[in-house]
Structure formats: C-alpha cells, structure tokens
C-alpha cells in the first residue's frame, strides 16, 4: 500500500513537500514506525501509548484529524500535521499554546466545597473529563484563522467539566474568564465534535457555557455589533453595504 506524508525540514528547505512510501502495515502508527525504522530514519512524528489515551499522535489523514494509533489506512492516503500550530518538523507541531489557553480559561477546580456526589452528578462531567488533549479539535477549528487568541474547544470543554462539578464553589470565576476570546467567538460549526476521538461534543459544551453565561448576566457581544440603527440609516445617504 502506498501512502503520502507531508514533510517539513526547515534546515533543508523552507517548504513542505509530500513524500510517498510503500508500507505493509494497516494501522497508521505501525506504518509510521515501519517507515521510520526500515526506510527513512528522518521521518518525525510523536507517539506514546499506542492505545488512544495519551493524545500525542494526532495528525491529519486526507485533511481530517485522526489519532494515528487508532487509524487504519487506505491506498493513497495523505498524512499531514495538524493545523493551527507551527509545524516544527514533519508531523510534529508546537503544543506550547496548550498551557496558555488552559490557564487563561481557569480550567481547574478553584475552590473545593464538600458535596454529596451522586452517580448522576458524576455522569454530568464524565464525557468531558475523558478529554485526552490531543488537539484534534483545536486543529479543526476555523476560528483560529481569524483569532489566534481564541480559547478553543478543548479548553472550553474542560471549563464546562469544572463548572458542572458540584465540588466547585467558584464556577462564576470560570464563566468570567471565558467571555473574552471564549464562548461567543465560536461559530458553532461543529468541526470539533466531528473529529473528537473521545466522542466529546465541544460544540454543545460551548452552547451550554453560553447559556450559563447568560444566566450569569452576560450577553452575546455579537448582538451589539448588529445595531441596525447605525450604518443602515439611509437618511444620511450612507449605506455601507451598497444597497
């Protein structure tokens, strides 16, 4: 089976290029290992547990985010690095933004309060706390193209996980922390939900956070931009949209 891998080595060439390899493995991670150990020692990628829980091997296959350890390949597949991050080399991208977005969004339990936790309470945060920080959702998110400071799907899902935790006494501070470059910047395109290997639904999580924000007294800042009195007032002969 032949697959193509998008490669980058800035010490040799500033441009990415596609390289074709013949492999016998069926699983993508095995194929990458096969190439690295038997054909081309320079192929560079991250991997860890090989069983879908460490989140280190996220790549794109034919433009869709996948964990290489859980992906079976087909003839002619094109493998490339995940998007939105600087490619360090081949399939390895810079992940340093992770710490920043998690910190900015207060994605942790701030003040513990003792509560009786029922199985239902635990169910409420179960799916969100299965996140493996693989960055697939981050890669698929179009908002980053226009706003690199967007907190993004995984950070917001993680915030909801702590907001919904009955043990958290200060969930308000998290709601405050995600107003700017946060819940309202999402376009609800749902790409993140489509690509999550853990079957998390960050889009719905973000919608939940929006309604919690409204309950906390915040409103959608985009609504303010849709003030129909300004600009559309034809009395002054000015119409920015040309009609």
């Amino acid at each position, binding site marked *: 089976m032949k697959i193509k891998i998008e490669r980058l*080595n*800035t*010490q*040799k060439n500033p441009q990415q290029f596609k390289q074709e390899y013949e492999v016998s493995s069926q699983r993508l991670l095995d194929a990458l290992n096969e190439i*690295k*150990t*038997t054909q081309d*020692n*320079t192929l*560079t*990628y*991250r*991997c*860890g*547990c*090989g*069983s*879908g*829980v*460490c*989140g*280190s091997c996220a790549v794109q296959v034919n433009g869709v985010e996948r964990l290489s350890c*859980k992906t079976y390949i087909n003839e002619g597949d094109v493998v490339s690095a995940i998007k939105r991050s600087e490619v*360090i*080399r081949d399939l*390895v991208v810079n*992940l*340093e933004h*992770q*710490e920043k977005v*998690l*910190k900015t969004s*207060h*994605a*942790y*339990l*701030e003040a*513990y309060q003792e509560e*009786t*936790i*029922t*199985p239902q*309470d*635990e169910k409420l*945060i*179960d799916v969100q*706390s*299965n*996140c*493996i*920080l693989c960055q697939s959702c981050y890669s698929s998110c179009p908002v980053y193209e226009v706003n690199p400071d967007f907190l993004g799907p995984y950070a917001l899902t*993680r915030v909801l996980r*702590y907001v919904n*935790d009955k*043990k*958290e006494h200060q969930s308000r501070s998290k709601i405050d922390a995600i107003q700017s470059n946060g819940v309202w910047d999402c376009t609800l395109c749902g790409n993140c939900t489509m690509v999550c290997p853990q079957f998390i639904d960050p889009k719905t999580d973000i919608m939940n956070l929006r309604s919690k924000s409204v309950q906390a007294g915040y409103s959608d800042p985009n609504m303010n931009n849709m003030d129909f009195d300004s600009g559309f007032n034809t009395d002054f002969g000015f119409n920015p949209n040309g009609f």
Partner: protein
Amino acid sequence: MIDVLVVGSGGAGLSAALHAKKEGANVLVVSKTYPTHSQTCQAQGGMNAVITEQDRVENHVHDTLKSSHGLGEEATIQSMCEDAKPIIEWLDELGVPFTRTSEGKIAQRKMGGASHSRSCYSADYTGLKILHTLYDTALKENIEFLNEHMILNIIVENEQAVGITAMDLKTSQVKEILAKTVILATGGYISIYNGFNTNSNATTGDGVAAALRAGAKLSNMEFIQFHPTAIKGANVLISESARGEGGYLVDDKGERFVDELKPRDVVARAIYDKMHQDKTVYLDLRHLGLDKINEVMPQERRLAMQFAHVKIEEELLPINPAAHYCMGGVFINDRSETTRENLYACGECAQSNVHGANRLGGNSLLEILSFGKKAGTEAALKARNTQYLTKEDTQQYQSDKNFIAQVFHLPNQIDFYDKKAFMGKIFFRNVGLYRNDINMKAVLSQVRQWQKEFMFMGITDKCTIYNRNLVEFIEFGNMLELSEVVVISAISRCESRGAHYREDHPMEVESYAKNSIAYRYDNTLAVEFKG
C-alpha cells in the same frame, strides 16, 4: 534558582511537584514529553485505598505483603496503605471524578489478589482522569514546565546530586539545569520488551539509567510483571477490572482453565502455557451484558473494537500476556531518598520496597501518589537547608555536550532499530514469564555485544530540529545499560519468586528473601542481595 527539580511529569512527578510547591519550594518540572502524554494515562483499573469500615488497612497491608512474596517492607507498606485514604480525599478535592455508589460514596471494585473490593476508580479511565486533574492543578498552582527536554545525566559534585543535563528535543541543544534537590519520576524500563509490552513508547528507563551512572543503587531489576490480558498481537492492555468485574479466561474449547483472580504472574503463566500448546486464549465478557460493559468498562469495549474488531458483548476477545510493569528501579528508602545525596525518586522508576516480587493490581497509582508526595515534601524540606553546591558549566555538562555533538558524526554500520526489535524478542522469550540460566546467559552475551557495537550504530538523521532518531538512539543506549542489569539480576536470583520464575530453580528459596541491589563499582556491574 530552583529548589526542587522534578524530572518526569506523570502522576508521580506532578504529585511531587505539587507537594514541593505546597512546602514553598521553587519547582521546575522537566519532561521528555508533555505531562498528559505520560504513561499514567494508561492506568485503567483503579487505585487501592481502604475507605470504608468493611475493610481495614491491615488487610491492604497483608494483601500487598503476600503479593510481594516476602520482599516488601511491612513498615513502608503500612505507611503507604495508611496514606491511601487521605490521598483519595485530596484527589477528590482537586476534582478527580471518581465513580460513585448510589449513596454518593466513592465506589470500589475488587482486583486480583485483593481480599476486599478496594480499588477506587473512574470508569476505566482512572489514570487518565487522575493525571489530567493533577495537570490542571499544576497549572492552577503556576508550576513551571520545561516540556520535551530529555534527561541525559545527573550532575554529581562532591558526591551530591546538584542538577541534570537535558537535551532540548526541538533544537538538540544540551542544557545544564542546576537545583538544590533532584527528584526522578521518569517511569519504568519496560520498553526493553520492545514489541511485547503494554507501555508507552516513551518509557525507556532514562532516569533509572542516569541514576545508575550517577552512582545510585538500583534494586529488584529482575522483577518484571506480565499482564495476563493484552489484545493478541496489538498488545493493547485490557484492564484487570475486566476480570474483576467477572470476566472469564477460556481456551479454544471454551473452557475455563485458571482462577481469573489469582495474582497476575500465576494467571499470565497459565495463559503462556496454553499458548505454548499452540492454543489461543480468550477473554469472555459476553455474560456481563452490554449495559454492564458500557457502565464499567467503556474503554475496554472501544479498544477491543478498534484493535481486534471484536464486540466484547457478543464475541470472545483473543488475548496474550505482555510485559506491563517493572517492580525494580532506583533504590529508595521510606522517605523517597536514593542512595545518592539530594537525589530522590518516586513512581515506577523507583524500587520503594512495597511491590517486592509482584505488584498488587491497583497499587501502582497509589504508589506514584504516595511516594510522589513523600519525594516532593522531603526534597522541599531538604532544599531549605541546602545551598547551591556548584557553579555553572560543570564537567558533566561539557562532556554531555561533546557526546551529543559526537553522535552526529558516528558511523552507521549497524542499525539500532533492528537490534531494538530483536532485543524485545529475546527478552520476552528468555527473560520473560519463564527463565533459565543458559538462555539468560545467551541474552547477556548478546546485550554486551550490542554495548560494544553501540558507537557503530549512530544516527542517519543529521538534522538538529526535533531529531527523534537521535532521541531513540540515546534511549536505546539507556535500554542497553538497563537490560544488562535486568539479566544479571535475574541470573543471580537462583530461585522462583513472584514474577521471577526460573525453570531451573522452580522453588522459592529462603536465603533469597532479600532485595537484589545493583550498582557500578569500578565500571563493573555488581549485584548483591540485602535483607
């Protein structure tokens, strides 16, 4: 100015860092990967803790001691088992979503070798949820991380650890990181069973090998735990909780052949025996039903579908044993101190006198958190009364810088990936579930041959940006160093005990009821036994 330098960012490292920070220390965590990429995420089954009145700490101590086959130290085990309840409470307060009973109590399940249901869990993602919660807390506490920096060596001056040298993966540059105290939390060395283990690719024993080179003593390196149930061929772990919840092990005829809840070594050998008769062994979970499976082992169901295309609620899952955990490591005392001053160790890289010849399921998460706490606290206290003992630009730094520069010019006459694959095979077959003197001596001579050839292996990737070829070459060097210790320790222990089973010495021998201690003396590896 760093008070406590933590090397490794899994459960043990993060626990150490959080406790050192709590003591007011200035902490830096240096990690070869990113914190959430570490091995801890793979722990599925649970963490042992006596938290109800139906169970007693003495039972936990007794079960652990029994599993250790006379090698565990009772006082240390007692202290760890007493620590378990406050640690569960601490984790609960940090936000770990433990599975609950209908009364709102933390639920517990029974694991192999345990006399009671004692394992606290979060479905079958226990390690993942603990690790991520610790990471979130570390970010909250503003703990500083230096990610993707691989430890090369421990800097020792005047017989004391004063820092480490580490290589920045992004640039291949060697850095010197000085600190008052150093904690190793770098994980185990199971990757010497390359291709036959359930571990992450990253667990190559870098810290353990560095400790040996720094003059610290290693211990019980021969004890390797084999997990009975890894998905056949893929070696993806299916947690012991599958058997704990009532799963059966059956042969080709569909018949059960071993008590599934016996200790791991006994069950694993029973499966290995069947495989040697060319029979396939299956895990049978069909009788549990889909609802139960979805409730208590959703990850197992997904893994079986992904890696074996098997629906466990309808079909049998083919399995094989695989190397899973190393009981040995850097020798530490009950305060997590190694034999080298100012150097601490915790987690799977340490031999903490609690697992002995075999680890009880559910005790590894407890160990990393309990000894992480001890290491962090003790190192922080020590740092308070310690001055910086050295100036920058140490001899170790100079020599490691030269070494890395030299690696780029080594000849590539021998392919080390080829040797690494072969190493896994001969270790699984000859230093695996069954061992004997002659086979292990053959492995030893092979390992020593590779050590001689190491400088002819080298790397073909000469780029300095994120050079995995270089990283894997250094890892292989560490594996070569440790594999020798494992084989020599296993050859020296002329008896069968726990996970170490010798066909030529099938009985437990009283005079070997001691820890093996390995160290370098005048460049020669020495192994002795100490009670």
